């Protein structure tokens, strides 16, 4: 097949899948392809990603392609530049396939909190169930595409591994700072990480290898060595030490899901991995509250810039006051969950409450980071279920209160708060739905996750 035929097949496949499952807010056109091909730097035939198509979460800027972070308030916004991760993908010959559906600004765990005029992505295994969130479109597209495809997702509190687990694909959330955030529309600056979802660990490792590294455009970017992650796929794991997080197998975690993960643990044992039970009492009890306070506080400041000026949704401002105009645009174009998080975040930062909520949470975050660090003195990685349940049905989600919704993140907020890399590996099915096993490693030890993760993929 010629390259042109390959591209046509990929674009047609994306259109076809989207009609049935709603994984894209925007699908690349032939004009977009021409634009990319016209840039010599982006036309490598021998790059690490030559021949690959990459779908990109809507919150990550792609030059010239409408990028809305899944929210109506950014409709019409066409970035003037590529996010660093997207630039690196293009430089390695990868072709951007489109912008994927998500909870608006990343606010959700099921991708049902989409923007007011956006579609909800459906689970690739059962259309009556959610994809997970917030990178739901990324994980769904990863599952359904037959072409050579990897997705560029983003996580704040679990938004890569949650949908990957619910859709039965691999997801890697790297260490905070490992991948540049330049060009990402922030949810919470101290928590956001860009990472891949793929069908196989090898492809996820490949994309991570391409997008990792220091970037002077991101002041929080880490200047740490980037290993050749793909060389860790399939490396023997004998003698490695893995701790089972005791609290992640307790109340609230579905017993069949536990069993699926226990099967993966048994597989590691058979390969000579030393397994012992460990405990994260502070993280398990306080992690969720700490996460939501910090994330909402940061989000409420980040979203202040969306006010109907310069880009996105706008209206004629003649005859209306400054504040009334901002209020009107925000009220009419932000969805309910965005408003809820802005309200709580604004409240928690207000005079008189800041120390009790924001500063207190930031202090407990220190204790949580220390709790993990102590375990990594002994263990190479920690293991637990990625999500406590299989992907819920849409009617079940409708019955949940916002707090019950947030509690779904109970297992993923810990590593996200501590900025630790983590991976989810598809595990045994429960009720014909996939489950995921999560491995967590110390900062900048993504190679260990790839080594351990690849040793347990597709064993069943």
């Amino acid at each position: 097949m010629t390259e042109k035929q390959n591209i046509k097949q990929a674009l047609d496949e994306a259109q076809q899948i989207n009609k049935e499952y709603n994984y894209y807010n925007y699908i690349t056109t032939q004009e977009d392809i021409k634009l990319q091909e016209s840039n010599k730097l982006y036309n490598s035939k021998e790059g690490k990603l030559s021949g690959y198509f990459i779908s990109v979460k809507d919150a990550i800027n792609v030059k010239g392609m409408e990028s809305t972070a899944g929210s109506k308030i950014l409709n019409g916004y066409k970035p003037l530049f590529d996010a660093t991760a997207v630039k690196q993908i293009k430089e390695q010959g990868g072709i951007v396939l489109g912008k994927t559906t998500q909870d608006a600004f990343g606010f959700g765990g099921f991708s049902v909190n989409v923007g007011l005029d956006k579609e909800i992505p459906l689970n690739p295994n059962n259309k009556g169930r959610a994809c997970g969130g917030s990178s739901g479109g990324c994980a769904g597209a990863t599952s359904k595409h037959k072409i050579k495809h990897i997705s560029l997702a983003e996580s704040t509190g679990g938004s890569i591994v949650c949908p990957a687990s619910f859709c039965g694909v691999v997801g890697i959330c790297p260490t905070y700072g490992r991948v540049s955030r330049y060009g990402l529309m922030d949810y919470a600056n101290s928590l956001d990480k860009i990472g891949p979802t793929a069908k196989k660990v090898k492809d996820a490792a490949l994309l991570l290898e391409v997008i990792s590294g220091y970037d002077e455009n991101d002041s929080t970017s880490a200047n740490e060595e980037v290993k050749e992650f793909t060389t860790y796929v399939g490396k023997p794991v004998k003698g490695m030490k893995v701790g089972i997080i005791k609290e992640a197998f307790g109340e609230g975690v579905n017993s069949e899901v536990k069993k699926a993960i226990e099967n993966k643990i048994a597989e590691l044992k058979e390969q000579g991995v030393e397994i012992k039970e460990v405990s994260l009492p502070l993280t398990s009890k306080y992690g969720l509250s700490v996460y939501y306070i910090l994330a909402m506080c940061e989000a409420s400041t980040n979203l202040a810039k969306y006010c109907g000026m310069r880009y996105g949704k706008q209206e004629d401002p003649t005859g209306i006051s400054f504040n009334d105009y901002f209020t009107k645009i925000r009220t009419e174009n932000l969805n309910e969950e965005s408003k809820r998080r802005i309200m709580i975040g604004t409240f928690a930062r207000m005079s008189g409450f800041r120390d009790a909520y924001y500063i207190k949470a930031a202090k407990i975050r220190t204790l949580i980071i220390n709790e993990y660090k102590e375990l990594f003195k002994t263990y190479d990685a920690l293991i637990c279920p990625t999500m406590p349940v299989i992907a819920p049905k849409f009617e079940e989600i409708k019955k949940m209160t916002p707090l019950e919704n947030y509690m779904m993140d109970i297992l993923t907020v810990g590593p996200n708060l501590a900025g630790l890399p983590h991976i989810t590996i598809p595990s045994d099915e429960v009720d014909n739905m996939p489950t995921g096993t999560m491995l967590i490693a110390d900062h900048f030890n993504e190679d260990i996750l790839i080594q351990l993760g690849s040793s347990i993929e597709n064993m069943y």
Partner: protein
Amino acid sequence: MEVNKELLQNVAKVARLKLTNKEIDAFIPQVKEILDSFQILSEVNTDNIKPSFQPIPIKNRLREDIPREPISIEDALKNTSLKQDTYFKGPKAV
């Protein structure tokens, strides 16, 4: 924590949002439930603990002070229809 209509209206004003009575009625129990769940943090002794505003140590890195081409005025105005000459057009501020 008492969460009432007045508090939510005040917060909404600060956040440049206008909530309908129906929205406020729905938000009151939800926000109360969420804020109450945060109270659990008061159990933790955080005396002498420094807050973590980032999960990894961040170092200041300064780049070479070399002038670069900024984005052009034409590009900066590409994403808006509300413009006049070389300026963004916005609501009246004073």
